[in-house]
């Protein structure tokens, strides 16, 4: 057998380990496992983004129907059509168009919407400042509801408090969020007149903006909180049955102390997973809530663009959502490692 020539994998570290101290790679190899872990996650984030952009681009490409002929209608003259195709760059080879698209996105340039005739970036800018704050707001609310109720239920397993929380979460999981939305509108907007029934006030007055997002955020948060509370409860109960809780009790900790000091942090791993998944849902899945509350959000934009075959908008918004989801997952991965030292030693 001939000796195999050393692959890049073996040569590169040697080359790089001769890098001067303080060089990025030197920092990477010599420092803490946390840095190594972060770099590992970061590289998988970049790969995910590249793969996702390719998939989105190709799917949009293979959808039948030429955008230019769609815009001009069926009676368009051939030379007009050709001119428009050139103008839109549709006559260029596919890989050129892909690189143009990606390069544009990196500069927050998504091209021009075919139906709105305005830059897609403007369309997104208007709406992302509704959808993103709404998702974050809902996530904060759902966490604030779920953590205490999950912990409370777990600490009183089988007793009245636990049964109440389980019952409430059962309802929360079963009832759709638009139903909550209608009930909230009925009570707080129509009866009590504390909030407006819909619309968005704009960020000129942040207080008003937050106020107009409050009812939608609650409606979005309640079902999510119910799921999260259940996960928190069952994860905590699993942890409370672990040997190290018995050890903690043998040290002299009370039940409550053992729960807070030893169980909660260990129970967070599955909870963080759910939070990461929920964020993605809250960002893009708020479309019904946006409709109920007349909010100009990304969900409505994407819905309208699909109806109008405005593929450039669809493509851009989907990519933006994918980007956000991947970044959130990256954050969740970092949170895992912050919570659990065992994960840091894996790369």
């Amino acid at each position, binding site marked *: 057998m001939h000796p195999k020539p050393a692959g890049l994998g073996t040569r590169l570290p040697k080359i790089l380990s001769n890098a001067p101290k303080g060089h990025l790679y030197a920092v990477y190899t010599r420092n803490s496992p946390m840095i190594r872990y972060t770099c590992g996650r970061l590289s998988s984030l970049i790969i995910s983004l590249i793969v996702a952009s390719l998939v989105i681009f190709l799917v949009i490409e293979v959808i039948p129907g030429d955008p230019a002929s769609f815009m001009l209608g069926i009676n368009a003259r051939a030379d007009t059509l050709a001119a428009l195709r050139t103008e839109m760059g549709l006559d260029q080879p596919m890989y050129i168009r892909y690189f143009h698209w990606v390069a544009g996105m990196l500069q927050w340039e998504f091209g021009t919407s075919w139906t709105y005739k305005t830059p897609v970036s403007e369309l997104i800018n208007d709406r992302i400042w509704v959808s993103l704050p709404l998702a974050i707001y809902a996530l904060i609310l759902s966490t604030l509801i779920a953590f205490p109720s999950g912990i409370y239920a777990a600490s009183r397993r089988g007793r009245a408090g636990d049964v109440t929380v389980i019952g409430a979460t059962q309802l929360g999981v079963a009832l759709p969020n638009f139903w909550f939305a209608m009930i909230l509108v009925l009570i707080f907007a129509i009866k009590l007149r504390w909030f407006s029934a819909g619309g968005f006030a704009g960020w000129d007055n942040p207080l008003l903006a937050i106020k107009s997002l409050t009812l939608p955020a609650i409606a979005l948060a309640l079902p999510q909180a119910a799921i999260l509370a259940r996960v928190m409860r069952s994860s905590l109960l699993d942890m409370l049955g672990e040997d190290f809780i018995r*050890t903690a009790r*043998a*040290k*002299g*900790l009370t039940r409550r102390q053992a729960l807070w000091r030893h169980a909660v942090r260990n129970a967070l791993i599955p909870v963080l997973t759910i939070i990461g998944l929920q964020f993605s849902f809250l960002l893009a899945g708020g479309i019904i809530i946006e409709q109920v509350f007349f909010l100009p959000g990304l969900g409505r934009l994407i819905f309208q663009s699909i109806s109008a075959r405005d593929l450039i908008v669809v493509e851009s918004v989907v990519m933006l959502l994918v980007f956000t989801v991947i970044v959130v997952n990256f954050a969740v991965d970092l949170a895992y490692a912050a*919570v659990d030292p065992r994960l840091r030693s894996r790369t």
Partner: protein
Amino acid sequence: MSLLSIKDYSLAIGDFKILHNIDVTVEPGQIVAITGESGSGKSMTALSVMGLLPDGAFAQGQIMLDGVDIGQTSESNLCKMRGNVMGMVFQEPMTALNPVKTIGDQVAETILIHQDTTKAEARKRAADILLRVGLKVAPSRYPHELSGGQRQRVVIAMAIAVRPKLLIADEPTTALDVTTQARILELLKDLVQDFGMGLLIITHDLAVVADIADEIVVMQKGKVVEAAATQDLLRDMQHPYTKALFEASSHKVALPERAHTTKLLEAKNIVRSYAMPRKALLGPRPTFKALNDVSFHIEHGERVGLVGESGCGKSTLTRAILGLERVQSGDIQLDGLPVFSGKKPNLDVRRRMQVVFQDPYSSFNPRHRVDRIITEPFHLLKSPPTGDERNAAIAKALKDVGLSEADKTKYIHEFSGGQRQRIAIARALIVEPELIIFDEAVSALDVSVRAQILDLIADLCRKRPLAYLFISHDLFVVRTVTDRVMVMQAGQIVEQGETEAVFSNPQHPYTRTLIAAAPKLPEITDAPLTV
């Protein structure tokens, strides 16, 4: 006044009576061992003293510890006492520590709960205590970075951090290797002398008991059947159960003589390595050699033992022999046929080779009846028996292992641990293999059940020419059921030879260490009773 006195204490959980009127006392500086088989109530006695009983427990009688009645005092007072007056060490060091906190912080926590001191001071003292229990790693390490023995030292450090008057150790060395076990027992003895604390040690291992205890308490089904000073008890056992227990622990089987024959299984220069996580992003993946150039053979009808500590490669070798895993290099053949052909195990070979695993509780599908479980290996046959022929095979296999034909329609939960292991053996026997691999097959069993299973194995050898590879960490068992033994360390076979010769005159230093570390039962002069 005794440090701990349990008087006429009974315990029930729901309708199920666990302890019946037990009496145990521990003096300061004394080591008292509670021993008995599983279900005898040993651990519940320990948890009763800690005041850590499960919900729904109902206790009668009295437990006086350091002048306090544990049953009568408040939960908040119990919290003040736990860790402070009485500390506890548990069986499973791998799970007894919180995985997300550093070991230093976990030890410091005991100090912070019970003493008015600053965090920095508690950390400093925790570091001292970790040194005292012989742990030479930084307090900033996490439990997953430590071995089982090191973790057990951390658990001990937590339990003795504020020098309790009584230390309770529940099977503290059962999950550890023999050499580690010897060092942990040494440490416990040393701490008792140094601190003058009482030690209540709970173990099923009579050799450990005889080695460490000043006084022995023998329990059976929730009752104390005998309690006496160690020397007295060993010299003059009163209760038949005590005698039976000791007899079963030193149970020897009579293997039939074996004629030298031809090679059945032959392994040549096997290497199996696993890739480890990268140390650097693009660096090469370091490899761990689980099996490093292992060669051996087993003859027809030969009984071979394989001993070694955890992580030495025993399980990897089992998987390699069974063809469950590919090896990187080397060759394993059964009667000249490779166990692994192409990309999958060689079924012709697999039929002639069966395995019995350690855990009788999790190695069966609980939703299958016994007849379906034991006929599983039939899929290896070209024309599996059906109808009457199949029924006859089932009946024979069950009868061979001492069960009855009627058992074939039962589910696995209806059997005890020992019976389940018999079913596992029946499953292995039903295709009449030439080689059986017993992978720690008796390690999870109580001593009396273990003795019965060993007898069964010897009995099977008498009835048919059976070759087996008996893998175990228990040197005593290997010594009695094998003709030849191999000693494995770090993926290599460091010594092999006739069993008696290796045990009476070990050549390799590692073999000597292993044999020296294994706790020994004292010779019992009394005529042994039958179980």
